[in-house]
């Protein structure tokens, strides 16, 4: 007669004990193997960074339209300025924090978010110091022509480093939340010159694109037709809701 197991007794019959030990050993191998398989099978993570807990000071001139940015001149006189997109803490844009300071020189404190495709600062709300009118004058945007680019609409804050991955289906909900809160929207595409670039989405009038046009299209493949232009080192795609097409 086979052995019979009763769980509330202090020990199990020998044959059952042996079988369970064997299975337990197999489960250990399964746990380690499963964890290793999953760890090794993940997509490559982008080299994007959020210097959380390491705030720094930045000085430069503010540009508010179409999206807030700080132009920082770190080099010799006459060298080009580096644009830092600006955002507020959490899932909010920085418009309210820098409102009314177009063209002003400021010093502010914030946390750097960076990736090959661009740089961004999460501003500490009470840290902005006005240093007066900027002597620099905004150059004319450089028109790069009309094109259709395919890629993915992202919220720039997560894409540049606050989340990793900051793109794709797993990040779609967060992207919708961030874009709804005013984080600058952008198309990530390498169609223009072979390099993966961020194209900030603006309307045909050059102002921020209406959210209804892209909110539910974030995190999935799209093709967008529009005019591309470059201004202060940032690339823009001027389009409208109708010219954003979902790709299968």
């Amino acid at each position: 007669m086979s052995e019979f197991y009763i769980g509330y007794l202090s020990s199990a019959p020998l044959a059952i004990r042996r079988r369970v030990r064997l299975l337990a050993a197999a489960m250990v191998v399964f746990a380690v193997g499963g964890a290793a398989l999953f760890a090794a099978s993940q997509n490559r993570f982008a080299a994007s960074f959020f210097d959380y807990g390491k705030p720094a000071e930045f000085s430069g001139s503010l540009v508010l339209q179409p999206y807030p940015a700080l132009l920082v001149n770190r080099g010799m006189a006459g060298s080009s300025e580096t644009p830092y997109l600006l955002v507020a803490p959490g899932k909010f844009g920085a418009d309210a924090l820098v409102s009314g300071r177009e063209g002003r020189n400021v010093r502010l404190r914030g946390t750097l978010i960076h990736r090959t495709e661009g740089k961004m600062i999460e501003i500490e709300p009470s840290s902005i110091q006005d240093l007066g009118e900027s002597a620099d004058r905004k150059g004319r945007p450089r028109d790069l022509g009309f094109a259709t680019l395919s890629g993915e609409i992202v919220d720039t804050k997560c894409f540049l480093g606050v989340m990793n991955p900051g793109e794709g289906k797993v990040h779609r909900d967060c992207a919708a939340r961030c874009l709804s809160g005013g984080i600058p929207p952008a198309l990530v595409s390498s169609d223009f010159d072979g390099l993966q670039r961020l194209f900030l989405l603006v309307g045909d009038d050059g102002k921020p694109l209406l959210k209804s046009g892209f909110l539910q299209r974030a995190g999935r493949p799209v093709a967008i037709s529009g005019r591309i232009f470059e201004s202060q080192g940032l690339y823009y795609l001027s389009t409208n809701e109708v010219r954003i097409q979902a790709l299968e």
Partner: protein
Amino acid sequence: MSHRYAGISWNPQKRAYDLMVAAGVVLYLVTFLALSSLLHPAATAETLLIRGFGSCAFLLLNVVLCIGPLCRLDSRYLPLLYNRRHLGVTTFLLGMVHGAFSLFQLHTLGDSDPLISLFTANRNYQSLADFPFQPLGFLALLILFLMSATSHDFWLRNLTPRVWKSLHMLVYAAYGLLVAHVTLGLLQSERSPWLVAAMGTSLALVLSLHVAAARKERELDDSTPKAQEENYVKVCAVSEIPEKCAKLVSLRGERVAIFKFDGKISALSNVCRHQNGPLGEGRIIDGCVTCPWHGFQYQPESGAAPEPFTEKVSTFRTKLVDGCVWLDPHPLPPGTYIEPSRIGRS
């Protein structure tokens, strides 16, 4: 076997079981987190924690679901079933960590309530490919919470075994939701075929074990009585029943366990009142039929649990003719005493 809301009665087996579960979970998490950090230095800690806890919970749920059919196929695995609810609670806790981290990362600090955002951030409910996968995980977690919260026998007693069992069968709904959650979420973003293969393998394992167990049960249910006479049907020879064990027969859709003990034959319902365990796969220990799942006991003559316990199962009339057992397939009210048929008097 207590129905009072009492703490766990620890014994060496239970401790060993829980230690193994804890060690397995820690081993999985440490391996995943360490290896991921090494292979993917750019990955954020939050992402790795979300993935580590989520995948561990899902794997554990697969294990939980395999235990039932595995024990139906081979009783040597019953020690895994005895404390299965500890695995279930662990699965919920791991899932909760995954869910809480995800909700915080993806839905807080924004312009909407996080729970509302969970259901409204992605509104493509009409599209399969774009379907919001996070609400699926939330619903599965809700089911796992209900199951964990009611896992104590106190709730089994107060909700009644039927309601409790129905509630806990929702684990299959939770599993389905989680398969969809992973398939429509992570698997749509990740490109590795290994992850798809791992998901397919785990799903196939769970399904094939259930099919194999169901086949075994069906063979029993498809067996037909050897003969019929008045109210009795001939079910088996006395010699077919091992001493202090049972022969299982299925009559009119009801399974009956016919026990042989001390030169006597008694028949009672196969379904334990605790968690529907198969009494017919149990033994007579200390004069009582003992359920193989959790050790609940019943007197074979009356189907009543020994005092102070109050569970009762149906009994059946038997008679012996020419060394064969004949059974009246009409169940008697639970706890009805029936004089056992005595072997050698037929």
